[in-house]
């Protein structure tokens, strides 16, 4: 299945990308995607990561669905 992955701030810097379409097997979750991405970009593991699927916060072990938008980012610092 195809997942649209988005990066912001520190995670965009760590991966050198802002968006990436990734093909994974059914049953994958955010943690699976981090494993895939970190194999190319180990700097991603230096951060405590948060996840949102389709613009809602989710935990790392929430199962993804084909076509989901997964955002991977660090603890927010707006305000």
């Amino acid at each position: 299945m195809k997942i649209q992955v988005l990066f912001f701030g520190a995670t965009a810097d760590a991966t050198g990308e802002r968006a990436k379409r990734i093909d994974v097997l059914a049953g994958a979750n955010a943690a699976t995607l981090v494993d895939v991405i970190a194999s190319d970009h180990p700097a991603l593991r230096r951060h405590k990561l948060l996840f949102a699927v389709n613009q809602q916060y989710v935990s790392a072990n929430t199962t993804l669905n084909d076509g989901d938008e997964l955002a991977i980012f660090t603890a927010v610092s707006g305000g």
Partner: protein
Amino acid sequence: MTDFAELTTSPIDIGSVARRVIPPDCGATVTLDGYARGFTKSKDGSVRETQYLVYEAYEPMAIKEMQKLIDAAKDKFEISNVGIVHRTGRLEIGETSVVISVAAPHRKAAFEACEWLIKELKRTAPIWKKEVFAGGEEWVEGESLPSE
């Protein structure tokens, strides 16, 4: 006369944000105006001078999270209207990064709701701040997580 949650790359005029939330039956608006500090404390306790800031948002989700906060605040406090505007992009020192205005018939509820909203916004809105200083830059990572 309605609530609003917005992102903008332009300078924010505090007064016009405050004005937009005022209904005629209200007596007070409380406005929180957050802005770019010139000095920040590093993790090691030393103080360094910031040259400018860059804010980045996951825009559609940030708007949704701010709207959720407005809905929650209106359930929780006796307030009439809420306006939130957060700036993104490059901010010079002293420029306003966020304005939250709350109008209420009684000012106590406006104070409480405004304080609650900024605390929650800093915890949940997917927006990140980069500090640029002499010789480097750093994305600030928040202290608390949305699920906490």
